[in-house]
């Protein structure tokens, strides 16, 4: 119980620190003064002064910071500096499901694929299948997502769109699940595959290495001596131990993607997700939106870290304290 409280406290500190950093960096950036932007081109000094006063830009920075945090977390009515009156909190919450759908689906694909490849390779190490699959995974790992995405679009959207193979592909964009589950699935299938490709390659290699390392362990010899089949040994014994390294990698990658790291995929497939939003906020130098997206993303990383620790506890009983015998 104490450790849970400690974790929450740590997470809160991280979020506060990040928000301060974002705030400070924004006001230190030359030409970032939001007044002119809000006022529009050729505004008179009087208007500028009024805006400055209305938005509180004439106050001390710590006061502005507190006010912004209050608007963001308590009142939840923080508005964009660029799109007049656009509230940022609902904007982030509208983008979140898109990103969650994208990353969730991709994660399922890359975990499934990498476990399959990793296990098959570890079952017949250094055989022809192993070599081919490991070569393929290097290829997947090294193809840039944006290039792969553009090529996929080129093929499925224009060149061969009207062939039997790709006529099901909807135009670029996102279809909410509640509006049409099948449309949702069709709009996301290609982005899923593209986003998961490099992760599948990386994870397959990591898993194979872990499984190969485990195969020399005593408990694997015991498993063989029990008369279990190679697949059983690999799944029940090898994978059970190798999960540990896999999980920490997975937790951080997913958190990072959900927090906006899937930007390239979102842009290429015109998905209005959090990455897209962050990208827009940064190009517009729109502090409220930057603040909202960055904090949203940081929160996910903090949460994911905590989840990884919990999963670790579930997977490895040795970490649970209080039961060790002398």
């Amino acid at each position, binding site marked *: 119980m104490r450790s849970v409280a400690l974790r929450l406290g740590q997470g809160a500190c991280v979020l506060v620190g990040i928000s301060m950093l974002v705030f400070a960096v924004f006001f230190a950036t030359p030409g970032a003064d939001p007044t002119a932007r809000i006022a529009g081109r050729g505004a008179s000094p009087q208007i500028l002064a009024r805006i400055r006063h209305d938005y509180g830009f004439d106050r001390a920075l710590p006061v502005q910071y507190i006010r912004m945090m209050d608007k963001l977390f308590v009142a939840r009515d923080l508005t964009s500096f660029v799109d007049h009156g656009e509230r940022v909190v609902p904007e982030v919450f509208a983008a979140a499901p898109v990103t969650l759908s994208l990353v969730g689906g991709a994660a399922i694909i890359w975990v499934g694929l990498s476990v399959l490849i990793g296990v098959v390779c570890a079952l017949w190490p250094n055989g022809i299948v192993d070599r081919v699959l490991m070569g393929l995974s290097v290829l997947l790992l090294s193809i840039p997502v944006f290039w792969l995405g553009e090529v996929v679009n080129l093929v499925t959207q224009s060149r061969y769109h009207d062939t039997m193979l790709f006529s099901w592909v909807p135009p670029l964009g996102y279809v909410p699940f509640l509006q049409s589950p099948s449309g949702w699935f069709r709009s996301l299938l290609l982005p899923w595959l593209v986003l998961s490709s490099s992760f599948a390659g990386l994870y397959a290699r990591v898993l194979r290495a872990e499984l190969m390392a485990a195969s020399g362990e005593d408990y694997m010899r*015991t498993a063989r001596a029990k*008369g279990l089949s190679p697949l059983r040994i690999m799944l029940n014994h090898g994978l059970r131990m190798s999960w540990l390294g896999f999980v920490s990698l997975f937790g951080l990658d997913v958190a990072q993607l959900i927090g906006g790291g899937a930007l390239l995929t979102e842009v290429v497939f015109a998905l209005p997700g959090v990455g897209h939003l962050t990208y827009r906020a940064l190009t517009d130098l729109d502090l409220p939106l930057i603040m909202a997206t960055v904090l949203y993303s940081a929160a996910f990383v903090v949460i994911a870290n905590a989840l990884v620790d919990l999963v670790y506890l579930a997977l490895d*009983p*040795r970490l649970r304290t209080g039961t*060790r015998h002398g």
Partner: protein
Amino acid sequence: MAEPILQVRDLCVRLSGRLILDHVSFDVLRGRTLGVVGESGSGKSVTASALMGLVPIASGSVKFGSREVAGLSERAWRALRGRQIAMVFQDPMSAFLPVRSVGAQIDEQIRAHERLSRTDARARTVQLLQRMEVPDAAQMARRYPHQLSGGLRQRAMIAMALSCRPDLLIADEPTTALDVTVQAQILALLREVSQRDAGVMLITHDMGVVAQSCADVVVMYAGVIVERGSVETILQAPLHPYTQALMAATPEIDGPRPARLATIPGQPPSPASRPQGCVFQPRCGYAHEACGRRPPLRSHAGRDVACVLYEGAA
């Protein structure tokens, strides 16, 4: 004469081109424990792996009951392993998977070989643990390996090995990682197993353990059997110079204390540099020209010994 459970004849094992086991022959008899003694590199653990089908047999015959098992397919070996031949390892901490409960790992072996429901398998697991004198067996089955003491872990390991009622139990240095008082408990348990359950082949480096637990003994050196016979005969009057030297080099807690221990000069040979003739010749105090030829195991004074000193005198 008790019937043999296992008959090994001229077993050779080659690993990465090197002969590791060189024409090894012995029997394990029902109700009698066979001790296999040797130092590291003697080939005693490779023998165990070969009998489990975990390393390929280059030549020779391994008869299990009346069935020849040398040359079986991997699939056929799998049906044999854990079911008819089972193994107990040196370090029960690393030999169990640390992330699953001990009971689950025993259940797994039972269910791999027999069509039993989860509950039935667990019932048998608990029963086995009770027989191994594990207190609170049902509770202990739910524990993870690190939560048990070294002695309990090894008891659980033996329970797992016996779970499919094997005919032969191979114990590879089962007490080396344990404290002496716990070692005594485990050896007592193994004695009981050999009388009631299965033939036991006990691999060890400790002559004291052999004296306590075995009826027959095989002394190995550099992949070759140098002396073979009943424990009483060999421990009372070892004939092979290696057996003699090994026993003289072991300190004891009673009897006269020598000012210096007898030692064997040099190091055991590696498989790459094994001598052409008698394997012990380079370190032997009795070596002479005749040792350039490998002596076969010959019957002499109630045991078999591979040494030219006893040839012709039979």
